[in-house]
């Protein structure tokens, strides 16, 4: 069992980590791309570690060190929960190499464990990137004994187990329920969205604990309030807090027992129904009752965009990962309208809307919207089908245009809805509303064109599982990361500068500048030929 498990795990890493490409690839361009992926991943990890350290150090500075262990656990767990939940379908269930693996002499438990371990190791890296720097920040204020360091490390190693098991179990249940419907993708997406909303609701409740007015007034009790909230929402944090702050070995054992126990239950339960779930998910409804009817003709670009729509709506991981930004932007803005501006502001203990907020909101919306960047991945998703577009009489520019049009059609309406909602909530005039809409469109234009450029530059066609492109691909990470950073920078710049000059003029300047950048990138893309891609 153990050697088979290790073999399977090793093969998964060799197949998915690009390390083999780094070792054996003779094409220098492909090697450089792989190196660029690792460099960008390293940069993101460094930034995350710096952020985690500063956060823990800041809490220590405010005299809230006791809350740091629980807080570190929660951050690590919520993110693990979110990513495992999204990833479980297509990796743990209904994965492409299912037939090949299940036909080999592996037990179902070995296959699940290998898949789960692969996810665990990846999540562990994230957990360590959060827990270790936060531990350092904590230690700089508390100066704990050696045993605390060991306890902290043990907790960091065990942290991903519980949220992963819960998320994978939820993902499995959704997959199982969804597989009973004819429109499996739709059913799974709706159920998954409910799950994601629940996770967001949970993290929002925790944030809420730290942001209301009373909380700030009682600054002396800040750590206590936070600890209580964290303990309420994530009870195992009681044990981790006790283990670190009071060096309680019993509490540590309790945490480990629950984490490992829940994982064991997950593997045992999933093993029983694993084949049934996968068979249902991977079998397809075939009515075989088609009768030839009148056909319609369309333009080539129409056909290509239609193909993109079908691709997007037929894959749960694609839809969930790339569509989530636009969905959240719309849901968030509609919720703001439903709750009403008065209640919303009252909950934040704000009586009068600061003018700066009206200038920052479009960028906050933009941050969510630009998370939906299908152009980062749509070219790579052609994968083994690339021969089709390459052998058809299609201009390279038409192929790229169709992918950009699809992204604009997907995100621009969501942007306009969000702009309208926030214009209503913030009671802005028509001119500001128009600027909101223009700003949204140029932001989406930037994410579309930059995403397309990244998608071409870091195209990867030799994938086995689309997750490799959608979640782990360099283009996907780069596209979303750059868009997010850009929106944050613009929000800070416009927010700060609006203190000394008219914010609306600043927004118009951003519209013009981003519009020019969009056009320049678009022009650059239109010069690329398909032979430059491969």
């Amino acid at each position, binding site marked *: 069992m153990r050697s088979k498990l290790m073999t399977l795990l090793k093969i998964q890493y060799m197949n998915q980590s690009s390390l083999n490409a780094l070792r054996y690839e003779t094409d220098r361009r492909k090697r450089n791309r792989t190196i660029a992926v690792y460099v960008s991943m390293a940069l993101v990890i460094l930034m995350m570690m710096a952020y985690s350290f500063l956060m823990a150090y800041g809490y220590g500075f405010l005299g809230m060190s006791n809350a740091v262990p629980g807080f570190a656990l929660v951050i690590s767990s919520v993110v693990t929960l979110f990513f495992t939940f999204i990833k479980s379908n297509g990796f743990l269930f209904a994965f492409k190499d299912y037939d090949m693996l299940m036909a080999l002499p592996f037990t179902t438990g070995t296959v699940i464990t290998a898949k789960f371990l692969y996810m665990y190791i990846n999540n562990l890296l994230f957990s360590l990137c959060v827990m270790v720097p936060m531990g350092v920040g904590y230690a700089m204020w508390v100066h704990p004994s050696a045993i605390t360091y060991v306890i902290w490390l043990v907790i960091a190693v065990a942290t991903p187990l519980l949220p992963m098991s819960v998320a994978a179990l939820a993902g499995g249940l959704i997959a199982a329920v969804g597989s009973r419907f004819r429109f499996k993708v739709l059913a799974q997406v709706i159920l998954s969205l409910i799950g994601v909303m629940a996770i967001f609701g949970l993290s929002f409740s925790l944030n809420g604990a730290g942001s209301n007015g009373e909380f700030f007034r009682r600054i002396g009790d800040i750590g206590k309030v936070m600890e209580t909230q964290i303990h309420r929402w994530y009870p195992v944090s009681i044990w981790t807090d006790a283990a670190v702050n009071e060096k309680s070995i019993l509490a540590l054992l309790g945490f480990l027992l629950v984490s490992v126990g829940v994982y064991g239950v997950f593997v045992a339960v999933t093993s029983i129904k694993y084949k049934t779930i996968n068979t249902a998910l991977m079998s397809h*409804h075939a009515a075989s009752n088609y009768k030839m009817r009148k056909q319609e003709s369309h333009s080539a670009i129409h056909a290509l965009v239609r193909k993109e729509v079908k691709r997007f709506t037929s894959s749960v991981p694609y839809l969930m990962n790339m569509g989530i930004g636009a969905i959240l932007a719309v849901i968030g803005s509609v919720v703001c309208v439903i709750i009403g501006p008065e209640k919303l502001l009252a909950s934040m203990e704000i009586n009068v809307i600061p003018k700066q907020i009206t200038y920052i909101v479009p960028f906050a919306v933009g941050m969510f919207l630009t998370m939906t960047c299908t152009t980062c991945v749509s070219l790579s998703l052609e994968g083994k089908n690339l021969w089709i577009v390459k052998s058809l009489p299609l201009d390279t520019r038409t192929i790229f245009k169709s992918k950009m049009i699809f992204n604009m059609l997907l995100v621009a309406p969501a942007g306009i809805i969000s702009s309208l909602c926030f214009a209503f909530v913030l009671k802005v005039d028509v001119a500001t509303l128009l600027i909101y809409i223009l700003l949204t469109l140029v932001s989406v234009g930037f994410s579309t064109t930059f995403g397309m450029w990244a998608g071409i530059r870091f195209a990867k066609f030799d994938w086995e599982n689309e997750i490799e492109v959608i979640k782990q691909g360099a283009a996907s990470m780069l596209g979303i990361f750059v868009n997010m950073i850009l929106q944050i920078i613009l929000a800070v710049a416009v927010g700060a500068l609006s203190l000394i000059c008219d914010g609306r003029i600043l927004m118009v300047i951003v519209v013009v500048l981003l519009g020019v950048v969009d056009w320049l990138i678009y022009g650059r893309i239109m010069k690329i030929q398909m032979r430059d891609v491969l």
Partner: protein
Amino acid sequence: MLEIRDFSKTYSGGKRAAEHITLTIEDGDIYGFIGHNGAGKSTTIRAVVGVLDFTEGDIFIDGHSVKKEPMECKKVTAYIPDNPDLYEHLTGIQYLNFVADIFGISAKEREERIRRYGDMFEITSSLGDLISSYSHGMKQKVTVISALIHEPKLMVMDEPFVGLDPKAALDLKNVMRELCKKGSSIFFSTHVLEVAQKLCNKIAIIKEGKIVTAGRMEDLVQNQSLEDVFMEVVEDAK
């Protein structure tokens, strides 16, 4: 119709897959391309249809250079790859309409052709199902129909009979003959030498990226079987 002129291909790793290949396929030819696995058949075919980029030599389709005027070449060419990797999230009819839209085929014409070939290959009733639910053979049939939908002047096929049931294989052979009678040309690779002998009027044998013999079938085979000729030529080329 198709002229391959001194075509060579070296992959970025340094592997030389094709060396100085020169072939001419005329209107109405059914040209068989025969060779071992890894001999360079697919590399040549992929270069002809514009899927594979190349720098050495040139390929002309209907007088247009694949390098300089790829669109003109692709408009008159149909390609059937060795593995029918189609868009699995589309239904068969959606895929066929997609290809027809790209070639600008009118609604009436595509309807007629899909009906004709769909019935011939006995797949019409499954055209409303997702391609992901198709067997290998069904996907191959859809690929064949998509290749025929624009009545190509040149049809390039890489192992087209793999995965087809006996009736579909026979139907495809008949379609190939019919197309050639109308003046189109067919260039295809195969391992099945009996099929090549019965179907082709010309063949080329490739070994380690080099053409070892090419010409009219009757001149090359004479009283022997193609299998004997193939083994003889390949042994002599050692």
